[in-house]
């Protein structure tokens, strides 16, 4: 068990980023490797594997419109990783919408259940490398993605452009753009392109998604807007993208993974098939699935978390920053 805990997965070598990316693209084909702008290629990554991209990630409503705000403290947990009662605030991370995740059976957290137990222990040595997750900016997926000032649109409507009503054209009512839902909220579908890249400078993954300026922040949890998420150039193209800042990912990921790792190890040491770990807030579906213990031939074999999972875990982490963007919803496609 002590050995497992030494797997400092939060510090990734470029090769490990590639391995984790290969696993992500294999398991969830909505993610693909991109070569990006060759002039901006990072030489420590393979030319064809410069960054990870998934297009058109749906975002059904604005985080700012969610009921989970400061008024709903139950939905938000200050996650403290500090040990021994340390008061070090730097070790805390706000997980938003915690109740929502845990309570909804359709939550994509279940996706993790499908991950097969791959052979071969991943031995990861710690060094100061961390992943740099670059979220691409939100893409203007639809009209609500780019909301123009109506005054700016030239007055050139031409209802006579098409001479007659075409009987073979379905009426616009059949087009789903905004859907009235039971709560009376309007569902405004945006889509994001999400990019993950590796940045040696910060050595953490970064996640980048392109909407327009402040509109992006409507999809970012209030606790993280302008702090963790800013608009900056995506390193592999000229596009500005909302970028989830990498600076503190390493330490946060370290804590998350240590917690998870302990949970996984505990699970692996447990008798088969027993469901447990109800207290592990973040990765309940993972640690509680029992899959690991079922598939491990020797219940005593303790291997802890594997490096391949890094990006999967990372997406969970990102999901708490952009709660309405379904980065985690790989099976919805």
């Amino acid at each position, binding site marked *: 068990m002590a050995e497992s805990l030494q797997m400092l997965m939060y510090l990734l070598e470029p090769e490990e980023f590639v391995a984790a990316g290969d696993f992500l693209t294999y398991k969830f084909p909505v993610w693909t490797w991109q070569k990006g702008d060759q002039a901006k290629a990072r030489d420590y990554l393979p030319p064809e594997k410069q960054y990870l991209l998934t297009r058109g990630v749906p975002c059904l409503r604005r985080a700012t419109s969610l009921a989970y705000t400061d008024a709903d403290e139950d939905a938000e947990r200050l996650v403290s990783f500090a040990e021994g009662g340390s008061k070090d605030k730097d070790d805390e991370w706000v997980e938003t919408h915690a109740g929502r995740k845990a309570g909804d059976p359709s939550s994509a957290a279940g996706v993790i259940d499908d991950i097969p137990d791959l052979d071969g222990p991943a031995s990861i040595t710690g060094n100061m490398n961390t992943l740099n997750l670059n979220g691409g900016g939100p893409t203007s997926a639809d009209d609500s993605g780019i909301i*123009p000032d109506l005054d700016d649109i030239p007055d050139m409507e031409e209802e006579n452009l098409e001479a007659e009503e075409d009987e073979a054209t*379905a009426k616009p009512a059949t087009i789903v753009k905004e859907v009235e*839902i039971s709560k009376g909220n309007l569902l405004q579908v945006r889509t994001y*392109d999400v990019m993950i890249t590796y940045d040696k400078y910060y050595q953490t993954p970064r996640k980048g998604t392109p909407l327009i300026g402040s509109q992006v922040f409507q999809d970012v949890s209030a606790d993280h807007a302008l702090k963790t998420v800013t608009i900056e150039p995506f390193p592999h193209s000229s596009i500005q993208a909302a970028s989830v800042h990498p600076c503190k990912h390493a330490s946060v990921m370290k804590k998350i993974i240590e917690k998870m790792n302990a949970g996984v190890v505990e699970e692996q040491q447990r008798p088969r098939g027993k469901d447990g770990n109800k207290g592990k807030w973040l990765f309940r579906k993972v640690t509680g699935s029992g899959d690991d213990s079922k598939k491990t031939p020797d219940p005593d074999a303790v291997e802890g978390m594997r490096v391949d999972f890094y990006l999967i875990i990372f997406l969970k982490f990102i999901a708490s920053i952009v709660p309405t963007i379904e980065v985690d919803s790989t099976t919805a496609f």
Partner: protein
Amino acid sequence: MPVLQFTPQSSLVQPGFWNELTRLKIDILKLSDQSIPISGSYTPGRWIIDRESGNEIALNGSLSLSAESFDLQIKPPQHSVPAFGTLKNYNTIEEFKAANKAELFNEVTQDIWNATTKTNDPNQLSRFLLLTFADLKKYKYYYWFAFPAFVVKPAWEIDESGWMDSNTKIGHEGLLSIWQALQNVSIPLPYFLIRPSSKSPFEIGKLEDFSSFFANVPEDQRIVSFVDPSASPQNPGWPLRNLLTYLRAQFPDSTRKLQVICWRDVEVPTSGKPWRSRFGIVAIDPSSNMTSECPTAVGWEKNAQGKLGPRLADLGGMMDPTRLADQAV
């Protein structure tokens, strides 16, 4: 029988496209307003579970342009099929407004008609037109898409039973064999043909091979199919319109009644989810004979207000250095 109605094609322009257009405009095009060939792609419709309500939300697949759209050789993204078009970028908002839209639209329509009747090139059936004006000082991009689709009179009709769940008609094994066949093609097929096979339930063929592929297949076992961007249960997507006209023009004797699959499954459904593809039988009145004349077409995209008018992408927030500096505080 009810008139067959199609879901209009929608568009989605990624910021990278505007970025690349800006670069081209400044470095290469300068004041030229020549037509530029571009490529785009679209995916089948898709369905997202809304975690708040548990409801399933249907999203149509939009014709998507990206930074790679100026490269006609580019491979479309995964699960996407290519579409080719013409970009006309104007130098001033006045020229943009004064563009002879009918003429430009007819040129593209004529291109599609040539592909339908002469060159026999299915990749040109979904050609589109894009008019733009880029206000580079303000990072504002005005644009208007058109997706010309032929108007047929009398119109195509859908069988009384309407569009059906493909699983009830084709079955899981059948759909699986089609899905597998689609994974094995080197270049994604926007349109394809399906026939029963001795090895697997079904096999697929290219649209342009219609005569040979269906040579020994009875008409009631022939199926035509296309990658369907519509997510509407009873309305197939726009690409079917020109496909039907193509089939009528090329094979008038055997296409008065057709079995159609609207292909909407990018992945084999898991965990109890249904196959999404739709099956239907469409028919056309025998009097609706094709002429050698190019038929009229419709297909200007409506704006967010549902009017025939241009759209605006304001990228100031993403590209304007001054505004970026403000946000970076």
